[in-house]
């Protein structure tokens, strides 16, 4: 007999139900844990790696001068402010002199008195000289006694000695005065070099102890960056290597050129960092503040070209024999793990391959899930869900 009449209604119903069923089958097979995993491949290339080191540091001054008194006292004046440029020998400020000025004046007076005494001794000597000469002459003319001549000779000697004494006394007083002046100078705070004032720690009237700095200076020409490098990533660091210094205030701009000045012989054992000093080839204008953070990239000499991998491709898998570093490769549509030995890497994520792969090999670089030898895969250009 005739089969079921195909009516429009039936067709319409199938038009809805069949796609629904197809969708259902698709959903059952292609999603969830049964679904194949998408992978992206990359080719191992021959490339000359320029390894680089990365560290962060702070801008510091090589020479810092903390100017302060050697005795406890009161600050009398501070002539400079932060940011002033000073010249060597310029007076930055001074401590309270207390009684030094008075003592210098006293010494002045003493000196004058000593001078007067010197003059007096000089006059006595002259007179004694004259007398001695005269009596000497008289003695030769036998007009006077030997005793008198001897007495006058002795007076001459006494007068000479007196002059010496007065002269030395004057010298002594002068030296004492110079000592007081030196002390007074000591209470002046003098800049030892040309530099920039970076700190003004005490204002006039403050009492400070010996050793406390009133003004701190730096030599702006001696700015360097004190950089910390993770010890793991500090291999190859050596003095003289070129570097780029990016100050925190510069954000993403290209950094200033510089080079590694020296590497500290004492590393930081607690933070496991190697310290190095990196200087600017040309000091930036305006000068960066002391203490500003900087990121430093040090370029190591380029290595000869060799096969390189992106570091995203490297996996560690565990097996009964231990864990191995290597990459996944797709051979005949299936996954295979290839152990590799790695060399140096650069800061862009490329790692040298010493053993295990050669240029032109394809490796799995991105995958949507963790892979194992049984995973079903399909190859895509870009991982799904990643904005390009």
């Amino acid at each position, binding site marked *: 007999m005739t089969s079921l009449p195909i009516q429009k209604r039936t067709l319409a119903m199938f038009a809805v139900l069949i796609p629904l069923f197809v969708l259902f089958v698709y959903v059952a097979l292609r999603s969830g844990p049964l679904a194949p995993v998408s992978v992206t491949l990359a080719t191992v290339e021959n490339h000359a790696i320029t390894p680089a080191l990365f560290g962060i540091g702070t801008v510091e001054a090589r020479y810092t001068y903390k100017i302060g008194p050697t005795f406890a006292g009161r600050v009398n004046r501070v002539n400079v402010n932060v940011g002033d440029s000073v010249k060597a020998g310029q007076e930055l400020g001074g401590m309270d002199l207390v009684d030094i000025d008075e003592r210098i004046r006293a010494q002045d007076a003493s000196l004058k008195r000593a001078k007067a005494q010197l003059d007096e001794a000089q006059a006595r000597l002259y007179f004694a000289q004259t007398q001695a000469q005269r009596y000497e002459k008289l003695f030769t003319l036998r007009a006077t006694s030997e005793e008198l001549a001897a007495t006058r000779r002795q007076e001459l000697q006494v007068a000479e000695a007196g002059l010496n004494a007065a002269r030395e006394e004057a010298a002594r007083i002068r030296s004492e005065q110079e000592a007081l002046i030196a002390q007074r100078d000591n209470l002046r705070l003098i800049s030892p070099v040309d530099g920039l004032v970076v700190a003004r720690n005490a204002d006039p009237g403050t009492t400070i102890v010996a050793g406390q700095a009133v003004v701190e200076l730096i030599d702006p020409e001696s700015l360097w960056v004190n950089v910390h490098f993770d010890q793991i990533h500090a291999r190859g660091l050596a003095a003289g290597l070129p570097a780029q210094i990016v100050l925190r205030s510069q954000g993403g701009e290209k950094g200033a050129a510089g080079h590694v000045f020296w590497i500290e012989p004492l590393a930081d054992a607690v933070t496991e960092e190697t310290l190095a000093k990196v200087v600017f080839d040309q000091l930036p204008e305006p000068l960066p503040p002391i203490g500003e953070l900087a990121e430093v990239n040090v370029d190591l000499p380029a290595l000869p070209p060799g096969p390189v991998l992106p570091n995203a491709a490297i996996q560690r898998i565990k097996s009964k024999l231990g864990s191995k570093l290597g990459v996944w490769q797709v051979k005949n549509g299936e996954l295979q793990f290839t152990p590799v030995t790695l060399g140096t890497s650069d800061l862009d994520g490329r790692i040298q391959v010493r053993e295990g792969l050669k240029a032109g090999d394809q490796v799995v670089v*991105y995958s949507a*899930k963790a892979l194992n030898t049984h995973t079903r895969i399909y190859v895509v250009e870009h991982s799904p869900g990643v904005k390009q």
Partner: protein
Amino acid sequence: MISLAGRDIMHAWGKFVFTGMGLGLLIGITLSMAGIYRGMVDDGKALLDNSGADLWVVQKDTLGPYAEPSSIFDDAWRGILGMPGVARTANVTYLTMQVRQGERDVRTMVTGVTPGEPGTPGWPPYLVAGRQITRGHYEAVADIATGFALGDRLQIRRNHYIVVGLTRRMVSSGGDPMVFIPLKDAQEAQFLKDNDAIRQQRRRTAANPAFNRPQVPDLLNAVIASQSTNAYVNAVLVQIEAGHDANDVAESIRRWKRLTVYTRSQMEEILIGKLIATSARQIFMFLVILSIVSAAIVAFIIYTLTLGKIREIAVLKLIGTKNRTIIALIMQQSIALGLIGFVVGKITATLLMAPIFPKYVLLEPLDSFIGFGAVMVICILASIISIRAALKVDPAEAIGG
């Protein structure tokens, strides 16, 4: 014999399919609930798998680092590395916080990973774009669930990080996506406060005469510097050498280092048994409620459909249709409704709910089979009320008074 149920459905197929779709949405939600539970368990397992660790060493007597806060010194790894059976150790910190990018911020788990090479425990084991971290500071690898893209600048506390790599399924046990940054930056983020707090602390320290001695000018600076450093990490991840038993190595670390050590199975128990237990109970309750609601709705629909046919059923009985046939009519309709509902539900759950739900929804084939069976059982049971009503119909009603 033709299928009465089939004919009835085809006659009003639009209404039937529409009703089935409505039921399907409900079933889809139920399946998604099961998927959410499985997703939560998978989140926990993914977290453990992705860390690459065989053992977790944490502060003594804590359930850390995921279930409880844990702090150990960041040089504790040195002693652990020397123990027999230990192949690799790595410090790791975890902090759940808001990460800002541009105008928006995202709740993430910021993970500090020790510098090293790929394959170090704590590092993301696989990427979907970009590369792993190479610099010791200010680079980040983010999970795509955060919505960040390569090259985005993130702000974590006071520092900015450039996203250099993207991962997938790197989530915390709570479902928060992870962002990996270098360990030192993470330590700073974890313990260093904001600028205002730091200034306050400096002021307090300077006001303390014990630290601010004029004869010792640098003492104050030294004290302030020591307050700004952080020497703690949340856990040490340990990978074991081949041939050694995880429990033995864990026991020796416990004994000699006097720290708490968890093996993989213990961590799973903590995460799934303690952390997720409450949520699991909630979801299970929801599942039960939804199933009951679905059953009630199917029963209601079938009852309505049957009542609408009560006259025809009386006629059928009168002209001699067997009870069996009438039962088959109702039950086949119920099962067909359930089938459509399940198909629509499965499609809804997979294509609609799973991608848009904020948590990970894992729909396993086993769940689908169980769900299908449950839907069929519910449909059959739900049709019983209608069948009873249909069988009670008196064929004499077809003959008028």
